[in-house]
């Protein structure tokens, strides 16, 4: 099972949302990381056939998804970023409706609906209208409908957005359970979510693939980028202006900074083990309102 994205491009008027994106996925969980506006959602929409690419191809097992058409949709499960639902439908009716859209026969649809509602912990509220559900319940319903047809390709766009920590953990575990023998692509800007469940991490910036690899690969790449430094409160502003600071903590000896930088920010800065989050900040500091690694000029000691 192989999903190939071949120079996938999407242009909206003057803006290129996805720019010649090429990547190959086999069974496993792929975490798509990027700042807001990086093109993650656009990329996922193209994979899910709800948005036509301006250029490039998507191939499943060597065949274009345009040719596969309905057969491709048949092996696809999709949870969009803003999961749309019918407020007047009950969870059960919504699942049965989605099952009929996915071509699941009546009896199997009922059985699968019961199984999945149980799996996502919505059995007790199956007959309640979706409008009465909390954000977490709606997301769980979203994932349940996405896997109704036991898809080979599961696309989850920001599945943990808006969930509280407990719901997020529950959701991550749910995705891990459902991911067996599937290509699962999930996007988020919460790095810890991806670190926990993704086999491969893909970072995207301004529509382009900038880096990809396993958590270990990327951690290795991030080596030498993270520094620990204790400064006085007076020096803090200078460092904030010059470096990308991933964390700061006021202590009795001063302000302890975690700095992401290619160069040693100060003589007394100590190298520390970098994380995926550090690497994320390294690439996206400019887009997140932090001082870019490229503009860092160092501090006069």
């Amino acid at each position, binding site marked *: 099972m192989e999903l190939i994205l071949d120079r996938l491009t999407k242009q909206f008027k003057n803006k290129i949302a996805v720019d010649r994106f090429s990547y190959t996925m086999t069974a496993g969980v792929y975490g798509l990381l990027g700042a807001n506006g990086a093109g993650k959602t656009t990329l996922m929409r193209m994979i*899910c056939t709800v948005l036509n690419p301006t250029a490039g191809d998507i191939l499943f097992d060597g065949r274009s998804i345009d040719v596969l058409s309905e057969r491709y949709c048949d092996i696809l499960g999709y949870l969009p970023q803003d999961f749309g*639902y019918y407020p007047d439908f009950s969870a059960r009716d919504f699942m049965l409706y989605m099952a009929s859209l996915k071509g699941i026969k009546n009896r199997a649809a009922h059985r699968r609906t019961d199984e999945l509602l149980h799996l996502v912990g919505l059995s007790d509220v199956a007959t309640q209208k979706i409008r009465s559900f909390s954000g977490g319940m709606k997301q769980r319903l979203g994932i349940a409908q996405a896997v109704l047809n036991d898809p080979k390709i599961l696309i989850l766009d920001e599945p943990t957005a808006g969930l509280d920590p407990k719901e997020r953990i529950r959701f991550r575990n749910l995705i891990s359970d459902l991911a067996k023998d599937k290509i699962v692509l999930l996007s988020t800007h919460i790095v810890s979510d991806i670190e926990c469940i993704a086999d491969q991490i893909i970072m995207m910036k301004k529509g382009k693939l900038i880096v990809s690899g396993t958590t270990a690969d990327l951690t290795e790449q991030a080596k030498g980028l993270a520094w620990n430094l204790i400064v006085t409160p007076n020096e803090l502003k200078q460092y904030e202006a010059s470096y990308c600071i991933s964390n700061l903590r006021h202590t009795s000896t001063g302000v302890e900074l975690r700095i992401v930088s290619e160069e040693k920010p100060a003589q007394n800065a100590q190298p520390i083990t970098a994380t995926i989050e550090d690497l994320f900040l390294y690439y996206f500091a400019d887009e997140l309102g932090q001082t870019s690694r490229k503009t860092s000029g160092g501090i006069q000691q």
Partner: protein
Amino acid sequence: MNMLLRFECKKLLNRKFTVITIFVLMLCIIALSLLIISENTYYNEDGSRMAGAEAIQANKASQAISEGKLTKQKLQEAFHQYQTVMNNPSNYEGTTNDLKDEVYVTELKPYDNVLSLLRRNYSPTGHYDYYILSSVSDEMINQFYEMRHAKIQELVNMDYSYGNYSQTEKEFILNKDSKIETPFSYDYTDGWSDILQRGFFTVFLLIGLAVCVIIAPIFAYEYQTGADAVVLSTRFGRKRIIYAKILAGFLVSSGIFFLATAFFMIITFAAYGIQGWNASFQILSFTSFYNLTILQVFLRGLLLNYLIVMAVMSITMLLSSVCKTSFSAVIISALWVFVPLFIPSSKSSKAFNYIINLLPAKALDTYTVFSVYDVYSFGTAVISLPIVILLFSTFIILIALPLAHRSFSKHQVA
């Protein structure tokens, strides 16, 4: 498909707005029916007034004398009765020209509708002269049907500011008129008159509006809720769902159409009965050139109006597939239905009038559609207005639905 269809119907019918719309539609139909029924009046010999169902029964009994074929003998009988009554000075109130109430009610009222047909026939074309019968002769009464045909000849040969009839159009109309079965079949037709002239148009216009409101979300709701992304990524999300939606639209719209029509007919038939169904349509619309009974016009009107409502539904579906929200689809669709109501006929352009004729606000008026002389020429072929409405509505359905299908199936979630 069955489950998909069931859910699509449920999506349309489960909305609060749908329930309110159907409820308001039914209320309007009840109010309209009761208003029409209540406006029936009958004056007794003593001048006292009856109204509503009671008046309907009295009118029915009063007109029974003229039932059957409207032969020359029957026309003469009515005419002579009129002459006898009018020529007797003792029938008048004092020295006035007003007949005594009891004389009118007992002597003339039973012939009122037949006398009205005579007045229409002998009045100058384009006018209705109440006193014309004083200058009519027995010979003219014997020529009733010939003179009616001559009147229609006169109508088609007149000069009109918006353009005259071509020779083929004249021949078409006159040929059709000459085929009208004579003598006319006469019966009590007040109920059918109220149904066709007053209720029909309003009821179907309301049904059209209700269909606009109920069908407008059929595609737009997917965009509004954001469910389009999920739906379009599924196996049947770009084909079968659209067929299910279209079928659901037809089923729901048809259901509303027949439910509301049945509601209106049950109330009106309960008050008037079905008497008069076999009468010639010319009893209601004297110069109509269609050889049809009232029931035939009613059934044809029902079929035409069903097609028009389905065309309204199809346009609404197309708008729903194109517009971002169901609100904008409702507004545009309702404008298409209602605006022509307020457009007056052109005094200079026949083509303009002929186009306006085909829009719902005009085409739903069955009585007028089967009364006017608007015929459409395509080369040497001449087609009557009801047929053109039928073809046009079918054409709209056949164009709008594939376009709606195309629009939704090509929809991009951006």
